[in-house]
């Protein structure tokens, strides 16, 4: 969620019970603008918080002029001192899938891969590295996975220019109440994968400047989907909660430009989803 609209946004997302203490909010209000100045980001988003067993990681993202470009991510243990995270690599993502369980809360903690996945450990040893995975790398990979899987925006909020870069749509006035209750009005904000699989009929209705992303309708499991859509506060806020990554909450106030998502959770994928629906 936008750093500038943090207080209002946090109160809209608080239906799930998770939020930030006044101390942390005040700290964010002071440190996020400084981040923007130091790293020369155009926008700074507060991504959320991953709860470890002994401490929590607070994550912020910085965006440049092209909103769809890979984002810079920073983490902090106290919302004041931020450290830049390296971009995620495929290898990191593959290793992070193997590591299960809670985060420890200490960025230098090392997960011993020899216990978890001996093959990967052997490969690492051969290539000359130690068979461990640092918690920081796991953190990077988890944030990337969450963004790819459940980072969503409303339809029409972003437009793609003919040059390929993506900008906010200044004419976006919000979804209407009827549209806001449908899963097809929300898009994953990552590289689209199945746009080409749509039938010709559907493609004819698409507007290439706004419909360049995957919509949520096709999220597995089919039919019920992996989202819970609710109207809170008497229908004035639409809140989507992800069931795959428990803790990801997206909010949008219909007919206004306000929207955003934030993650407050343990950083673990809910693999039991098919049994729970």
């Amino acid at each position, binding site marked *: 969620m936008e750093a500038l609209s943090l207080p209002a946004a946090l109160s809209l997302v608080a239906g799930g019970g998770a939020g930030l203490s006044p101390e942390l909010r005040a700290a964010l209000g002071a440190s996020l603008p400084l981040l923007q100045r130091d790293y020369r980001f155009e926008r700074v988003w507060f991504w959320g918080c991953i709860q470890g067993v002994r401490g929590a990681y607070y994550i912020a993202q910085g965006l440049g002029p092209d909103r769809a470009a890979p984002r810079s991510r920073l983490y902090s243990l106290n919302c004041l001192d931020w450290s830049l995270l390296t971009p995620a690599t495929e290898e990191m993502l593959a290793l992070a899938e193997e590591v299960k369980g809670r985060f420890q809360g200490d960025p230098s903690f090392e997960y011993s891969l020899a216990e978890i996945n001996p093959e990967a450990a052997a490969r690492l040893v051969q290539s000359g590295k130690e068979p461990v995975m640092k918690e920081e790398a796991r953190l990077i990979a988890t944030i990337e996975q969450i963004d790819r899987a459940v980072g969503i925006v409303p339809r029409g909020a972003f437009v793609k220019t003919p040059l390929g870069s993506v900008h906010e749509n200044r004419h976006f006035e919000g979804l209407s109440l009827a549209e806001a209750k449908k899963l097809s009005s929300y898009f994953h904000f990552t590289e689209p994968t199945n746009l080409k699989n749509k039938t010709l009929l559907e493609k004819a209705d698409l507007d290439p400047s706004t419909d360049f992303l995957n919509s949520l309708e096709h999220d597995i499991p089919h039919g019920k989907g992996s989202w*819970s859509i609710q109207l809170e506060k008497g229908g004035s806020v639409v809140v989507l909660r992800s069931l795959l990554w428990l803790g990801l909450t997206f909010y949008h106030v219909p007919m206004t430009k306000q929207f955003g998502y934030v993650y407050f959770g343990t950083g673990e994928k809910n693999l039991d989803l098919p049994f729970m629906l």
Partner: protein
Amino acid sequence: EGGHGPYQPHEPGYGLDQPGYSPYEDEIPDAQARMLAIKNAKAYLLKTSTKSGLNLYDHFAAILTKILDEQPANTVDIIETISQDVKWAQFRKKMDTLRDEHLIPPTFEAAEKCKALFIKEAGEEEHEELDEEMGEPALPNVMETAFYFEQAGIGLSKDECYYIFLAFKNLISVQPIQTCRFWGKILGLEMNYIIAEVQLREGEEEEEREEEEEETVAEEEKEMGEGEEEEEQKEKEPEPPKSAYKPPPEIPKEANGTGTNKYVYFVCNEPGKPWVKLPPVTPAQIVCARQIKKFFTGRLDAPIVSFPPFPGNEANYLRAQIARISAGTHVSPTGFYQFPEDEEEEEGGDTYEENPEFEPPPVAEMVESLAMWAHHVKGILKQGRCVWINPAQKSEEDEEEGEEEEEEEEEEHQEETGQPLLTLISEDEGMKNIPAWTAQASTNLIPEYSIAILQSNRWPGAYAFASGRKFENIYFGWGHKYSPESHTPALPPPAEAEFPSEPGITEAADPTVEEELAFKAAQEEALAEAEEEEEEEGEDD
């Protein structure tokens, strides 16, 4: 025609404002023809479209008016969207009335309900006098609790808290409540649950128990009546063999006011909606709830489709999870509660009372050592109850039917003992390398006003805080336990095996007459040989 100029001699456009030299002039030099061309162009622009009734001329005029009025930045980049908006604006006026009627109901109905919460009842003054007689106010101070939890970053928005506060006030005025507490909020797919933990006044509980007993007696009478009819019918027809299977005896639920049913729970989907009472929980429901993991939908009458089949609907599943969460995560500072002196501790008493001599330890100690916290709700045994009961003890009616022999054959049920009440949470087991609880102070910057916060790792979403003499527990989450491994649903039992093959029941062809005669002849031969051998042996002697 000459739109630019007058140009100075040093400017590049010098001379272009003269007729005949402007860049646009070279197309139609003749003035008359040019006027005609302009008129034709304008007539073309004024042509109304056959589809929409608009014409390009008016549309351009509207766009330019809008642009010059608003003067947005980088207009050329957004010109298409401006054009679309102008077109859309044309339609709005016609469809206005229809749309307004559709949109009004959902948003504003809910706002009306919230407003209704704020209306004071007419009989308020009488209620206030009664409260003074009763002693402590029953209404919990939700806002105060919310303030403490907010220091840890836990809790709902202030507006929602206040609505819940008012909803509690309504609940108290409707139901005969002795004490009540905001238990927490459980999220669901379509709607959420707001849960209140309540102790009803003593007289009311007995009335309810009588009602329940009357209902069960009436049901039994109905069954007896039906049974008699069936027996009459059956006497006429030959009866099929009855199965010898007896299901394991049903473990009785705990009485209201004890064990898992110590408190009564009321739920509502949103503050402003009516409160619904949840039924008491049975041990079978708890045992089954431990084996399944399902999201709540938000509708209390939704069925739970699962294996093993859950005995009840969503209201029962919700009640079972509430019982499990309360038993697992309700804690208080050690020493706040104590056993009453007249009761023996060996009985595993269920009651506790406040310790008037309790001295709250400093916050730093509460955070460092988990031994400063204790459970004040009894844990649930594997059987599904807090107090173990031997299911082999049957009622008198069953014994008269002559089942004493079967009782002896049943396995002996081992008595289960759980941890006694008021155990320290430092004895809670962790999972793998994760401790069961995480303790933190709310702030490190201002230690004199910080409070101790506990988070449960076994039930993510369960929190507790302590500050001086004040403490509270709360739950915000989806209502499921944390397990390091993925949830594996129970496998269905193996299919019934066929009856084992024995010679007594295997089919064999009956011997034919020839075979029987041959067999008989062979037997006689064998007998004859045996007699000859005996005779020979006799002769040898």
